[in-house]
């Protein structure tokens, strides 16, 4: 029995390390249930433990992965060990090769450790590309060793960074393929196909209803103004024979913040902006009294309610002359700040939807500072996945100037909207 307990405790710890909220109660429950089921039936054991440990659909996926890895037969364990040892040997061999290959003039290249590891892990075809490049540069290297060794290093670094980003993208694919809606929730908005759009629109409507409900509940719970509501009090008193057993108070008046949306509609941002706009406008609790501006190289104010449809939105952007042009965030923000009557003010929240790719970054940064001074709050929604932020200087600059939230997926967009409601 103690062996079972020990194994279960280890399994609980493993689940905990994978992010499941597993406490002693769950381990005790698992122990109890194992005493009454047929332990020789692996499937029954899996289902019983799953019911005890996994408390959501997402956790069920993590549980199954852990269960398959933890409860293995002796043969499977040996096979797994042999496979891991072979992989470790292969990786060691590749590291030795990489050390020899990443040399310039007989000296090891000055590269970060994580990038060296990317070189070890990337495919043979990609490594071949770098080897061929090195081969071509050999003659030049002998003529001007210092200049060309720096050039080779920078080419290596750029190539390896791109590979690192690609590997991270691959790791994210398929990790949330649990059910179609959930997959859609976690998929990059820019990757949505036309067939996904009706489902995504339905999902957006459902999420915004949920957010609206959460917000109205939050407001309901904010207490009363302290002033008695005579009409309601007398009405309620009638229920108890004229005794004012329960008093009713007037509700606090809610002051909603004014929302100013500035959406980038240049090139790849078009689909993203349409989704975000649809999302935010469908939240009635935040959309009252708001202004929407679209920009690429110029700025146009639009009626967002008339554009709650992908085709209408695209047609409007094309006919307005904004489509297919570059991005000038600095110009757009400057115009917004100078506009009269002023859209920005202390009670307004400026929401910028952009991937930070703009001409004249220093001017854009200055304009953000000015917008922050004029508006009560500036929140930036960025469609670039957060894991890629460290690779992009423009994002780092803008993130240091205002609050930036990732929203490459509908799930991230939901989280950002919750932030917006606070």
């Amino acid at each position, binding site marked *: 029995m103690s062996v079972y307990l020990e194994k279960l405790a280890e399994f609980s710890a493993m689940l905990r390390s994978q992010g499941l*909220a597993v*406490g002693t*109660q*769950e381990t005790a*429950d698992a122990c*109890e*249930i194992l005493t*009454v*089921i*047929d332990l020789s039936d692996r*499937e*029954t054991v899996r*289902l*019983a433990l*799953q*019911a*005890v440990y*996994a*408390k*959501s*659909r997402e*956790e*069920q996926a993590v549980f199954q992965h852990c269960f398959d890895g933890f409860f293995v037969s002796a043969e499977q364990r040996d096979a797994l060990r042999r496979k891991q040892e072979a992989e470790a040997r292969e990786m060691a061999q590749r590291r030795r090769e990489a050390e020899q290959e990443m040399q310039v003039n007989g000296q090891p290249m000055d590269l970060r450790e994580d990038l060296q590891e990317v070189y070890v892990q990337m495919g043979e075809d990609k490594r071949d590309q770098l080897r061929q490049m090195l081969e071509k540069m050999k003659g030049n290297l002998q003529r001007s060793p210092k200049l060309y060794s720096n050039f080779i290093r920078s080419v290596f670094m750029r190539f390896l960074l791109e590979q690192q980003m690609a590997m991270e993208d691959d790791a994210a694919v398929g990790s949330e393929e649990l*059910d*179609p809606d959930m997959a859609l929730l976690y998929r990059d908005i820019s990757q949505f196909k036309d*067939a*996904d759009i*009706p*489902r995504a629109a*339905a999902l957006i409507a*459902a999420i915004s*209803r*949920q957010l609206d*409900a*959460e917000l109205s*509940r939050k407001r309901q*719970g904010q207490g009363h103004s302290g002033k008695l509501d005579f009409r309601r009090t007398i009405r309620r008193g009638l*229920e*108890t*024979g004229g*005794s004012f*057993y329960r008093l009713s108070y007037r509700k606090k008046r809610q002051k909603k913040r004014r929302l100013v949306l500035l959406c980038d509609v240049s090139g790849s941002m078009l689909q993203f902006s349409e989704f975000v706009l649809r999302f935010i406008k469908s939240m009635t609790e935040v959309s009252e009294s708001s202004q929407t501006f679209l920009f690429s190289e110029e700025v146009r104010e639009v009626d967002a309610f008339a554009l709650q449809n992908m085709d209408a939105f695209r047609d409007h952007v094309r006919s307005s002359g904004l489509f297919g042009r570059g991005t000038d965030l600095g110009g757009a923000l400057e115009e917004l700040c100078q506009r009269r009557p002023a859209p920005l003010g202390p009670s307004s929240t400026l929401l910028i939807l952009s991937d930070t790719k703009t001409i004249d970054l220093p001017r854009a940064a200055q304009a953000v500072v000015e917008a922050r001074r004029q508006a009560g709050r500036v929140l930036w929604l960025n469609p670039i996945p957060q894991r890629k932020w460290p690779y992009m200087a423009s994002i780092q600059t803008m993130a240091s100037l205002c609050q930036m939230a990732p929203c490459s997926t509908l799930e991230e967009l939901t989280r950002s909207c919750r932030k917006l409601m606070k």
Partner: protein
Amino acid sequence: MDIPALQKKLDEAKYICSGDVAATLLVALRLGRPLLIEGPAGVGKTEIAKVMASALDRELVRLQCYEGLDESKALYEWNYQKQLLSIQVQMDRRDADELTRSLFSDEYLLERPLLRAIRSEKPVVLLIDEIDKSDEEFEAFLLELLSEMQVTIPETGAVKASSIPFVVLTSNRTRPLGEALRRRCAYLYLQYPDIDKEMSIIKAKRPNVNEHLAVQVAQAIHDLRQSETILKKPSIAETLDWVSALEALGISDLTKETARQTMGFVLKSSEDLEAAGDVLYGESCGCGHDHDHGHEHCGACGHHQA
């Protein structure tokens, strides 16, 4: 009771379920844990509580959740009118303390579903339906009941459960439930049934339906659920309604025309009804593939031909 025995009982109650559902139900029952069931609307979440009541031969006590639900509707409420009347009638009574005490007795207590479930002498099945529609405050209020099987009435003190009810909570995931509530429950996620299971359900619930029609309906429902253009997926109850409608009209073969006539029993919005023709019969497919291959899918475009 073991898994096959429970599954047999559920079969007898005409609830067709797989081994994993039976296993989870058994775990919750054995551990005395509440069972949280999530899944899309119409997969049979509420039905589980009903059939468990029937299988365990227990009374079903149901609490339907909604926004604004509070303990006066879910747990108990004092009968204020009766209390006031009683005060006026017994105004000249000398023992005021005794009168006050009597005002907070069972006589003036209006029992709501939660209190009824835990004060019942015989164990019951307590269904807390659509918990996601209630407020977070109510969810927090449930924690005491779900973990300690007791509730506290400020005027009288804690009420311990006379018998442990089998608690079933259902949620459509319209809002995320709190971690604290989840931790106290066993968890089950229900999905739409596959074609074979749908057929078994049709046969169990509508035993007189002809086999050919049942196959056609199950296949059509499966196609509608798989389609991305259908926004509100048909529920199991809608499948059964459709079968009943077809039976009532004396239809024994599902053709394009009969499907069109009765589709209103399955799909409830004009957009979905419009899209159904494309999904089932490829009316405006436009994929350029030959669709004269009988009652089959077009592998290239995913459309379905009659």
